[in-house]
Each structure stands twice: as C-alpha cells, then as structure tokens.
C-alpha cells in the first residue's frame, strides 16, 4: 500500500475523533512551544550581552596593576603600585594602540548642598570618552589642560547627578564636595546602563587621574590603564602591550608579570557562556514537557488500538497485512506529533513576540532550534507510536473480530 494511501487512511481515522486528536496534539504543541520560547528568551539574553559588550567598546583592553596569579603574598588586582603614568604614556607607542587612559580609582562620599551620595570616583584621562564612545549630556568632559594641572573638576554619571541635583537638572557650574574638597561640576555623562559585569556605569564621577593622585590620595602610581585598539582584533595588541610593559618594568624572562592584561572579549565570553548554560537548562526543562507529550501520544494510541480492535480485525480480514496496520497506526502517531510540532512552533513564535512586546524582554527566534524541535517532534511520534502500532499489527484477526 502506498504511503499516500496510508496517510489518507490515517487522516480519516484521526478526523473521526477530532477532540481526542486535538487533545493529544496539545501535549506536543505545549512541548515544542515551550522549547522554542525558552530558547528564544535565552538567545535574546545573549544578544543583549553582546550589545552591552559592544557598548563598552569591543576594542578595549584593560591593564591592571598587580597579578592575581602571582605566587607568594598575593595582592588584590589594582592594589599594587607597579603601574605609573609613564607606563600609560609609553603604551601610546605600541603598534595598534589608538587611545590610552591612565586610571586611579577611589570611593567617597560626594556632597552637594544638603544631599550626599557614596559613589565611585574614577580618576581617568581625556581618552576615556573616546574609548567608551560616551558623549556628555550637559557640559563637557575635562581637557588635557585639566589633567596637567590636576584641576578639581568633576564630570558626573547620571545616577550621581540625579541623586545630588534631582532628575533633568543641569548641574554644570555647581560645586560639589568630595572628601571635603570642593570640585566644580563641568559636565554630566549620558546614561550608559549596566556594564557586562552588571555594574551600574552611571553611578560614578570622573575627574582627572592626576587630581585623584595628588589631591585625594597622595600617591605616585596609577591603578589601571584602559587602552583602545585600532581594530577589534585585540589579542596581538594585548600581547604587544604585555611585552612593552615587561620591558619597561625590567622583568627577566621567567619572572611573572606584575600587571594583568585583559581584553573585553575575554570578559564578555565568560558571561555569554553563563547565559548559554542557562538557555540549555531552560530548553532541557521545556524538553521534559515534550517527552510528556510523547507519552500522551503513546497512551492515546494504546487506547485507540484497544478501542479499534474490531476495526483492525476487519481490515486484516479484507486483506490488510500486519505491516499495513503497523504503518497506519505509526503514521497516525507521526501525523499527531508533526501537526502538534508545527502548531507548537507557531505558538513559540507568538509567545516570544508577546514576551518581547509586553515584558520588554528581548527574544531571538532561532532557526536552527525550529528545525531541531520539528525533528524531535517527528522522532517522538515514531518512538512513542511504534509500540502501540506493533501491538495492533500483531493482533490475531479472528480474536480481533470477536472482540467486544
């Protein structure tokens, strides 16, 4: 008997019991729909991270003083005094390096009028604005002149500006106090949101690094250097930077680095990996419902075989071979699972779009997973349909015809 004929017989049989067919399909619909939605959410989250990494500047390389892989008495990253402003200046000569900003970090209570806020004080260089590709909302970033003169000027992140002066107020020209020293506000950055580390990049103030060194901390060294490479291919530049710094610090071959070089890519890949694991986990949980749907199909097919025993007996009496009966029931199961799978894919699409629209969560519907879900649906039909179908095919026609 031809496949088309088998398909037609199966469709007629399913059509005879529409409600049951639909309910059985529901298992597959929910299973496939859940897998697609979960993966779409996961992929959406990954895309967001990639977006964040891009906003942080894909070309960025961070150099921190100290080396936390170093043996002996370990010092926290950035706590060592091994980096100097001269190191930063020297890195400008390294091929492939475009922008360089020395950095000294501090924390402190920032006060304006009767408002105060504890925040991060980032001493940095003028290049920071180019490296992070970060425009100001009000006023301007500080200048090379300010850096040279260690001027007490501050550029506020939006969070700090809001906390001290209220939202949508231009505080340019106001005076704030940082560790009891007056700083003049010369600008406010635009909002940048979370970094790839989940840190609020807007909860900070920027001042020249020289100001932090001399006026706030009284130190000669710097904590870190942020470099921007000319191209996103940062690995060779990072290697060249290491080489240059080792030379400047007169480290013998075999000596460990007294600094740590990290590319943005390395930082980002860690979080992307985490999200991917999460996606797989969610998809696996959704996959359980797919299996449950498959068991539902097997359950109904078994009931159906028992219920249609006399039909099977009759079909055999008029010339159906065991293989014809097997194929008929198998095709019925596959039709249920494939149709259910198709509708499930549609449901997954609808849910993903709904979540994106109403919950504002980014989603990305993955083409490869649609193929996977469809394939799994078909395989489920074959796997869970085979046992009932074989049971039907092995019936004895005489017994089957007598069945009440």
């Amino acid at each position, binding site marked *: 008997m031809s496949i088309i004929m088998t398909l037609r017989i199966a469709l007629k049989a399913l059509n005879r019991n529409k409600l049951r067919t639909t309910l059985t399909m529901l298992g597959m619909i929910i299973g496939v729909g859940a897998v697609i939605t979960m993966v779409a959410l996961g992929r959406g989250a990954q895309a967001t991270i990639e977006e964040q990494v891009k906003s942080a500047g894909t070309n960025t390389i961070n150099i921190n003083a100290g080396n936390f892989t170093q043996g002996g008495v370990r010092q926290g990253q950035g706590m060592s005094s091994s980096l100097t402003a001269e190191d930063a200046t020297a890195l400008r000569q390294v091929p492939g390096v475009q922008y360089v900003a020395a950095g000294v970090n501090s924390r402190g209570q920032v006060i304006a009028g009767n408002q105060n806020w504890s925040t991060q004080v980032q001493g940095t260089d003028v290049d920071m604005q180019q490296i992070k590709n970060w425009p100001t909302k009000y006023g301007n970033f500080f200048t090379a002149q300010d850096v040279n003169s260690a001027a007490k000027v501050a550029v506020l992140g939006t969070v700090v500006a809001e906390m001290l002066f209220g939202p949508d107020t231009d505080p340019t020209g106001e005076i704030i106090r940082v560790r009891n020293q007056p700083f003049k506000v010369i600008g406010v950055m635009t909002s940048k949101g979370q970094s790839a580390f989940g840190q609020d990049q807007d909860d900070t103030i920027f001042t020249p690094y020289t100001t932090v060194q001399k006026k706030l901390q009284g130190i000669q060294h710097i904590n870190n250097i942020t470099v921007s490479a000319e191209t996103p291919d940062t690995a060779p530049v990072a290697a060249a930077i290491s080489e240059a710094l080792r030379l400047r610090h007169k480290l013998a071959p075999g000596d460990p680095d007294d600094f740590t070089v990290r590319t943005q890519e390395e930082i980002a890949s860690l979080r992307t990996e985490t999200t991917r694991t999460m996606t797989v986990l969610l998809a696996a949980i959704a996959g359980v419902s797919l299996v449950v749907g498959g068991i539902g199909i097997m359950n109904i097919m078994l009931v159906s075989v028992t*219920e249609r025993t006399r039909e099977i007996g009759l079909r055999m009496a008029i010339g159906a071979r065991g293989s014809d009966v097997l194929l008929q029931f198998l095709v019925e199961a596959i039709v249920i699972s494939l149709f259910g799978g198709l509708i499930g894919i549609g449901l997954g699409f609808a849910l993903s779009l709904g979540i994106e629209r109403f919950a504002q969560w980014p989603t990305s519907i993955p083409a490869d997973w649609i193929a996977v879900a469809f394939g799994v649906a078909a395989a489920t039909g074959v796997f869970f349909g085979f046992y009932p179908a074989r049971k039907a095919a092995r019936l004895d026609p005489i017994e089957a015809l007598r069945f009440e």
Partner: protein
Amino acid sequence: MPVISVRNIVKTYTVGEVTVRALRGADLDIDAGEFVAITGPSGSGKSTLMHILGCLDRPTSGQYFLDGVDVSRMSKDQLAMVRNKKIGFVFQGFNLLSRTTALDNVELPLLYNGGSKMKSVERHRRAMEALKIVGLGDRFHHFPNQLSGGQQQRVAIARSLITEPSIILADEPTGNLDTRTSIEVMDIFQRLNRERGITIVLITHEMDIAEHGTRFIRFRDGKIQVDQKISKRRDAAAELAALPPPEDEPEPPKGDPAASDHGGVA
C-alpha cells in the same frame, strides 16, 4: 475442479490447559457456483472451518486447496493477499467503520489491493456499482448509524463484492436481522450466486435460512455429519412477493451514534 478442496483437515488449539480439538479430520469439496449452507451446534467446528476457509487461520494438519492452490502453508502476508483477492467476508455484526460513509466502507478492500495503483475515480465507480447491486444506489453518503440493520448488512455485502472474489463467506449474516430483512439479504445472496456465479458459503443456525442454499452440511464434534443436496430450495424473491408489503418501516435513527451503533466498528 472444485474451488474449495479440504483434505483431512485437523485443527487443535489450547485454551489454558485444555486442548480443544475443533476439527478432527474433515473432508470437503465445494464446486464453483455452489451455495453451501453450514449448520451445527456451537463448538461443532463450523466457525473454525470458516476461519480456515477464509484464510484467517491455518490448519494444524491436512490440506486446503483454494482454486487449486495449497494455501494451508502460506505465510501470513500471502494469506492477507489471498483474502483480499479471492474471498469476500460478511459478518453477523456487519463490521462497518463508524463515521465513514457507505461508499468509503465499500471501497476499503481496494485500499489493500496489493499495491495496485487504482485511481480514486475508478475505486469510486466500482464502489457505487457494488452498492447499486445490493440496492443501495441512493445511500452512497450515508453513515452506518443512519442506515437500518438490513441496509448496513447490504453495505457489508457490497464491500465483500468489490474485489470481485470467487467466494463469499457469510458468518451468520442474518443473526442480527428480523425475518423480512433476513429474506431480503438471502435474496441478494441468491442473486449474486445465480447471476454472477459467485460461490457462497453460509453459516447459520436457522434451518429456513439454510434452505436458501443448494447444499446442506451439518457439523458435529469437528466432523461433517450430514452433507446433502437441498431438494426443495427456497426462493427468497418468491417469499418476499408472498409476504405482506412492509409496514411503514420506522425511520432509521439519525445522527445519534450511541443509540444505533450496533454492529459498527468503533
């Protein structure tokens, strides 16, 4: 040459620990064009013989030649093919597919017609023709639950005809029918037998039904006890003419499958 030839056929099977000797060496020849009525008490082996004749079962020993071919040792798939091409079945319980039109029910055997690529138009044409032969030319698209018992049995007869078999095996076809409908069904069998030369083997409990045949066989204890020509054969057409015209037949029930699905296959 006889169309059915059974030689010393034995069938034993075990139910639990009891061995049942259903057939204990029966010999039987049926010529083409005969109308054989088989009777016998329950457990006499007539049903077992029917299953073997219908190629639904294989004998424990002995031989069965159908159209000169020994089918007693054929494989299951070969037997399925033989059933499809050479044998038509009519059952007591009709065994029609429910929620399936008369036309589709009649077409069913053609779907298993050994991979022959018959066009659906051709299948339809043949199914319509078969339904017309049994007098249901106006019931093509009715579902079994919209037909009376007699009409359902006629659909089943049309189904048995569609592959143009040489034998029709009827297992108590009038068991679920009233007297008049029974005679109507016997009329159809007699016409098929007379006009088309189809060999008919009929199992029945009722003597008056058996007397519509040309030959009478009684089974007892797995053997043939009586085998004789029927001298005064009943003519169903004449009987029908003699009966009072049918009282207004109550409308066959419509649409409620639960109430009227007797004999239908779920």
